[in-house]
């Protein structure tokens, strides 16, 4: 998988983020919408990546986590709670995914775990609706995304 | 009946005193010997017959890939012993004498007809498509990683050992072994008269534990003990596992991969070293030889 495809994946993942939680939606419809986003991510990964890439199995879910993280920037209320939950979800996917991969001989990658927890600084210590904290969060998530690819090579 | 507080206290104290006195009794008669009577002079042809049967159950040989020469065990970088074997497939004519020798040396039980139908043979050394396959004693062994109790554990001598009393039969190790070299004691073979104590040195395994090729650990231990009793250092010489000793073509070579003068290292020089594809990346110590390097 090339770095370009990887960056493309991030952009592709972020497309639905502003719209997904904008409109009020019924629970089944929203569930279906998120699932369809995930399905599209899966198709995207299937097209641009290959199973030789060690994180291939994880990639659609990492994309989903990134999407959910970014989408919290557009929430009107309870942003603090959902931003932290989305970041934890990302950590969760990465940690347990890499843990199971490490048993298969893929080296465990520490960098996302060094970067992602930094997201809690703006979430908890800055005003959640201010521009700066939103910017910080976006930078941290982007850095986590990039670093988890760069240090894999 | 109503008990006043004072009498209750007295009762309690009395009980404690009695129990404490009972606790001072600190001797015990010997436990019963639970050693089951098993025949030590059984009919070997029964074992031979089962080996021939099991050949049909595993008609396909393992696919082999070339691997580098086994070296230091990753968990014991300072050790100077890494015991292992090389099986010369150019010499092997799959006579099956190794399989029989293995069963006799290690008291490997036979299985009953029902178990045989389900393919639950206990053979530590199997003939898969005529090729002798046993535990490869991986350095980075998948079985050792998942054993919850530490019954499957690496030995500093570079092989993978199995501590039966610690095993509780989760069978995770067997599930995780890509080579399927581990065998589970589904039944109590001694109870059914299918086990025999050919070798008094080796315990019979109870029902519910895993077992596998131990590289004839009893022979290794005895050789080491003998050498150390007389004050000598032991680096894997002067001993052969049962299969290697039984091979009429000397196709099974045993030795220490880290001892450059051992038979194993000398005879594998310039040969093509192969390992089963499924476990090739786990640094096996038991490898196959074929052709030139």
């Amino acid at each position, binding site marked *: 998988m090339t770095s370009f495809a990887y960056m493309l994946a991030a952009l592709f993942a972020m497309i639905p983020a502003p719209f997904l939680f904008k409109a009020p939606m019924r629970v089944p419809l929203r569930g279906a919408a998120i699932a369809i986003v995930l399905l599209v991510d899966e198709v995207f990964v299937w097209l641009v990546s290959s199973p030789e890439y060690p994180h291939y199995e994880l990639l659609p879910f990492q994309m989903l986590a990134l999407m959910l993280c970014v989408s919290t920037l557009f929430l009107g209320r309870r942003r603090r709670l959902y931003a932290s939950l989305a970041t934890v979800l990302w950590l969760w996917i990465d940690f347990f995914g890499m843990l199971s991969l490490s048993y298969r001989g893929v080296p465990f990658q520490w960098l996302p775990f060094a970067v992602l927890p930094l997201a809690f600084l703006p979430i908890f210590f800055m005003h959640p609706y201010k521009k700066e904290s939103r910017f910080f969060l976006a930078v941290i998530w982007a850095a986590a995304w990039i670093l988890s690819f760069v240090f894999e090579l | 009946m109503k008990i006043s507080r004072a009498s209750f206290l007295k009762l309690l104290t009395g009980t404690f005193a009695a129990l404490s006195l009972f606790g001072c009794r600190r001797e015990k008669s010997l436990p019963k010997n639970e050693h089951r009577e098993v025949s030590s002079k059984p009919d070997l042809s029964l074992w031979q017959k089962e080996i021939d049967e099991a050949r049909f159950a595993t008609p396909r040989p393992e696919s082999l890939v070339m691997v580098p020469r086994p070296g230091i065990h990753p968990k014991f970088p300072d050790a100077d012993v890494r015991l292992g074997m090389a099986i010369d497939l150019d010499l092997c004519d799959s006579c099956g004498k190794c399989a029989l020798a293995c069963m006799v040396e290690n008291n490997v039980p036979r299985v009953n007809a029902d178990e045989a139908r389900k393919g639950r043979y206990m053979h530590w050394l199997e003939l898969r498509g005529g090729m002798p396959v046993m535990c490869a004693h991986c350095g980075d062994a998948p079985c050792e990683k998942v054993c919850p109790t530490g019954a499957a554990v690496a030995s500093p001598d570079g092989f993978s050992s199995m501590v039966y009393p610690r095993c509780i039969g*989760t069978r995770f190790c067997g599930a995780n072994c890509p080579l399927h070299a581990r065998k589970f004691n589904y039944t109590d073979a001694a109870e059914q008269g299918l086990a025999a104590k050919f070798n008094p040195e080796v315990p019979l395994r109870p029902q519910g534990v895993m077992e596998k090729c131990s590289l004839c650990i009893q022979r290794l231990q005895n050789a080491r003990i003998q050498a150390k009793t007389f004050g000598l250092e032991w680096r894997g010489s002067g001993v052969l596992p049962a299969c290697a000793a039984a091979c009429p073509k000397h196709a099974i070579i045993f030795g220490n991969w880290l001892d450059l003068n051992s038979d194993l290292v000398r005879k594998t020089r310039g040969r093509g070293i192969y390992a089963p594809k499924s476990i090739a990346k786990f640094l096996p110590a038991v490898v196959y030889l074929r052709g030139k390097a």
Partner: protein
Amino acid sequence: MNRNFLIFGLVLLLPSLFAVDSALSIGPASWALSQESFWGTPIADFVFWIGLAHAGTLFSAILLVLGVRWQHRVAFLAELSTIAALGVAASFPLIHLGIPEAFYNMIPVGNARSMYVNVESPLVWDFVAIFVYGTVSVLYLLLHLFSIRNASLEKYRRPFAWILFPLVLWVHTIVSLDFAVTFVPGWQGAYFPLYFIFGALFSGVALVQILVELSHRRVRAVEDLLIAFSWALLAFWMWEANVKAVWHPELLIFGFLVPQLLWISKVREISVVRALVAISVMASLWWERIGLVQPENLDWTWVDLGLASFGIGAFCVAFALLRILLKKFFPQAFDEDVMESLRERVVSFERKKFWISVGVGTFAAGAFAVYFIWNAPAFPGVRMIPVLFPIGALCAGISLSLFAIAELWKTRVAVMCAVLLAVFAVAVGGLLYRGTDVSYTESLTTVESVNPALGTSKQATAELWNARCAACHGKDGNLNRKFVHEFYPLPQTLSLERLDSLGLDSLSKVVLEGRNYMRPFRGRVTDAEAFALVRYMRSLAVQKKGGAVP
């Protein structure tokens, strides 16, 4: 409802006890396994039931954390089903074990034999996580029950939910890692943690849907969740089909297409259809676990089916009994009006005590890590983390419960509870530390007369001489005067000259055949050993004379 549940459960449970008995007495041989596929239906049933147990936590803890206003009645129903399902789930791994009575070897405490569990193994994580999940769930249920009676406890529920919420996800993540870390091709998957969590929640929601239908009620939100989760599972199944190239159309039909019926409002109004949809979901998820654990079909025996029936039967009986029992002690929980009024209660958050408990939990997990790194030979690094969180959660949950007890009764009661708990923990830990007396059945050997075959090397012969001959002839070749003087007429000294004049061959014959007072040693030493002994005797004589040892 309770009576019907009990009858239905007993009908399934009683016959299936034969299967359990057979599984325990015959062992793993009684169900479908082979020497290559070592895990069978008990594991699939375990994963299924532990998944169902997640429903209660979802409906009471997770939704509480996420701030969703929810019916206490449904939450309570789900919590009870969690306890019942957890009990059922925990019994399956024990049945699965080859030696069930030795399960305690998985408990991660030290013992006098310096044997530590392998914290790298997912099964240890599993064992700890399920134990903790069970304990904390029971504590949470009790808290819920007491808070109905006593509104002052309400402020502990959300802190407790914050402990339970990650724990429940952690538990199923660990169950998924049982498979994900292996080298079995069908079990590998880095995405398994999320996949298993969603599968578990899906089946749990389906279970709650059935329970709600059976109590003749209607909760639209549960039906909505069912549809939402069916879409999530579709995404996972598609990804699994892509990664592993396996295709399970039956899962897509019964697990995905059938729940979509609920979109049609006319169909959705029929109670039977709603129940059947939930049953179809549960069945397809059970089948999915079976297909995961045993990718290739083995011949099932009656025990396989019996154990599946045991699961359902035991769940129904446990659920009904729990309800009957609780109705006696907590009648308010079954009172419609009381439960309805709870919905309006303001739920505050006991911040200080929550953070103290989190601190206790963190300290406990840290202490465990240090203890293990200190004692166990190889520190497995990051692979230890999965076991740390449940340990921390257990301690945090217990400490929060103690705070709640102090609030409910008195501080003194809470302190005494803590002391009692500590004593109990120390007693159990001590027993585990000490270990059992004889842990192995085929254990003892009878020793008779044996010849230690040492060989005929110089050192071996010296040892043989010391053992066999030195009693009379002395270790150095001089007579053992203590013994010989007292009991025998003194023989001639064995000088070098005398030995040489007799010759080694005839001397070794003396060893074997005996002479005068010396008894024959044939049978106790071999011919070669006899000859080696004679040579050794000569070397001793040479030494005695002051000469060099040849």
